[in-house]
């Protein structure tokens, strides 16, 4: 009797759970985008910064009317930078019938999502979804792993590498390569060497070193090695503590070298490096806050002014603005958020970015082609970064033609 009662109660409880568990139908007043990134744990700062930039961009886009008369809305999911968690979050996205899934941090997550989206779209042709890549840079994602459903709205590692190598001054004749020992860092090393051989065969690579990811606390021994090598420039794709500690150690030891980085403009680096980097630190970036003044672009100036009024870190997501402008046009052209129609409208689209440069969403591999700006970290600029008193000043910029690189993508297109 006891046992029966227990069973009855448990089944009632399960039933109640089931009712509560029915998926909520997505409201039709907004266009929802499932946004999967790390929002807790050690990598939370990446997702946090991206989210703030996207909220700002969406306010800007929604103020102009959105698409099909509807505003955009982000539905966030925390993946803690783990592919398995991202895949579980993706299931929630598809359960809610969201038309887009977006992710910025972690190429390993991006790669897992591409596979998941492909499998989902082939197994569920009535609930297809498009994947927006807003920051996962590994070159493979639009080459070997390219997919019709995947659109990358930020330049790949190799595009960045082109800008990095081309912007090295002619006076630099020897470089020391230092990178993090994982997919991204190895990708940077490969592309750096490739383009050095192609564009600057006069430069000698005195060393090619890898460090374990996020493990090294004390960079002093590395600095000794670098000094002993006599290189003029330290070319590194490091980011986070691996970059900040490296530069700090170098400056402390009085190392007279250029720090030519790929990612020193990412959030947090300026604060950590501070005046140590003055005059010697360079990076290649999609935008920085002094470009409007350099190019006398009033509208862009307004945009950044508004950002700086409410945020104390730099806005570096210019391609994401272009991303939403393109999405608006594609959705309007397609007349709906149907994945195939929007994808057809998106590929091959040309759009002027905030600085007036025409970006192209290439049809063959769904890679956005945009220019890069190589800048030096220095004083006497209008807008400083993270209240350090120093900011970026452009030294070199690439064109879209420079960034148009061959692709190995063999895209499979859906028949319907």
């Amino acid at each position, binding site marked *: 009797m006891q046992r029966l009662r227990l069973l009855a109660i448990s089944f009632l409880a399960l039933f109640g759970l089931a009712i509560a568990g029915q998926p909520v139908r997505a409201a039709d007043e907004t266009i929802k985008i499932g946004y999967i990134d790390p929002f807790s744990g050690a990598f939370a700062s990446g997702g946090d910064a991206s989210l703030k930039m996207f909220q700002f961009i969406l306010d800007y886009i929604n103020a102009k009317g959105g698409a099909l008369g509807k505003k955009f809305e982000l539905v966030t999911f925390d993946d803690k930078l783990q592919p398995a968690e991202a895949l579980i979050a993706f299931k929630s996205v598809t359960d809610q019938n969201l038309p887009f899934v977006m992710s910025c941090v972690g190429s390993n997550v991006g790669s897992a999502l591409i596979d998941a989206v492909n499998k989902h779209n082939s197994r569920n042709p009535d609930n297809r979804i498009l994947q927006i890549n807003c920051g996962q840079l590994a070159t493979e994602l639009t080459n070997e792993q390219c997919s019709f459903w995947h659109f990358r709205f930020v330049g790949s590692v190799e595009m960045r590498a082109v800008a990095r190598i081309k912007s090295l001054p002619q006076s630099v004749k020897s470089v020391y390569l230092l990178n993090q020992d994982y997919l991204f860092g190895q990708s940077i090393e490969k592309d750096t060497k490739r383009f050095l051989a192609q564009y600057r065969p006069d430069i000698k690579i005195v060393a090619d070193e890898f460090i*374990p990811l996020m493990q090294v*606390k*004390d960079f002093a021994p590395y600095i*000794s*090695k670098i000094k*002993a090598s006599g290189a003029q420039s330290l070319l590194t794709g490091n980011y986070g503590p691996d970059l900040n500690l490296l530069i700090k150690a170098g400056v402390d030891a009085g190392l007279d070298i250029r720090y030519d980085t790929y990612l020193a403009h990412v959030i947090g680096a300026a*604060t950590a490096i501070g005046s140590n980097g003055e005059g010697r630190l360079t990076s290649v970036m999609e935008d920085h806050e002094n470009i409007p003044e350099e190019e006398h672009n009033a509208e862009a100036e307004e945009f950044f002014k508004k950002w700086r009024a409410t945020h104390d870190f730099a806005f570096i997501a210019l391609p994401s603005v272009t991303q939403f402008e393109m999405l608006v046009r594609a959705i309007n052209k397609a007349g709906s958020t149907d994945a195939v129609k929007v994808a057809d409208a998106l590929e091959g689209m040309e759009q002027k970015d905030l600085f007036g440069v025409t970006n192209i969403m290439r049809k063959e591999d769904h890679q956005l082609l945009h220019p890069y700006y190589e800048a030096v970290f220095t004083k006497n600029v209008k807008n400083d970064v993270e209240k350090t008193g120093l900011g970026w000043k452009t030294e070199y910029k690439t064109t879209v033609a420079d960034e148009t690189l061959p692709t190995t993508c063999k895209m499979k297109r859906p028949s319907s």
Partner: protein
Amino acid sequence: MQIGLISLLDGLVYGMLLFMLASGLTLILSMMGVLNFAHASIYMLGAYFAYQISTWIGFWPALVIAPLLCGAIGAAIEVWGLRRVHHNGHIAELLFTFGLVFIIGRAVQMVWGMLPMPYRVPTSLDFPLFSIYGENFPAYRGFMLLISGGMLFTTWLLLKKTRIGLIIQAALTHPSMVSALGHDVPRVFTLVFAGGSLLAGLAGVIAGNYFTTESSMADAMGPIVFVVVIFGGLGSLAGCFIASILMGMVQTFSVVADWSFADLISPFGITLGANDLLGEILTIPVSRIGPLVPYALLILILLFRPRGLMGTRET
């Protein structure tokens, strides 16, 4: 030669820093048997407190106040937390400190945000002390050596020359006997935990502006400190000291070692390709796997000498 001397100095500085962190932990572990995972979190708190206080008052007051705050927090954790959990066993204590790690981590993110803090070396110490072969040795490193050396000396003095130190030493190896002799062992425990936390906080104050102060600091330092403590052996501060310096040197010198196992056997005419897992392992240079060497050393020493280097107690 040049690299050797510089690496020696750098290894010494890093080793002393490790020792500051590890000494507190070894006292706690030896005496109370608690695997205190929150130790690195208190180190992180020390750095954040020091940053905050130095923006309000200055670096030198922060040097004194922040460690005291950490010591107070340690005492609070012991009195209101660990003491209640003590009778539930060691795994319970371990999980308790685990829970603290999560809470402190999130609290730090909430109070100070997720970005690194601009906690800088004070300008009075920001100059090169001397230079070896053209490479500067910053004064702040000398300061770090001074503080950690001074702290080592003070701890030694405290433990060997005072009465409470005598009791602590005894309780390190025979806690139940000390209790039977009538000493207030719980109060000794609290004192040791607070002392260990103070040391961790001090390490944070000094290292926070030399490395970076951010919310992932604790995860970065945590594992290596455990390695040092166990390698040195329970119940022995001297062992802890030797282990810290050893690990510091190993990590520093391994960076400059560019050879791999394959290089060792290549004179015999055997070449190895990196096409399979075994090949990859054998051709990877030591400099790439430097930070992993301490873990390998730990495993080795535990296999053959479970007491650690100079441990006085079996675990």
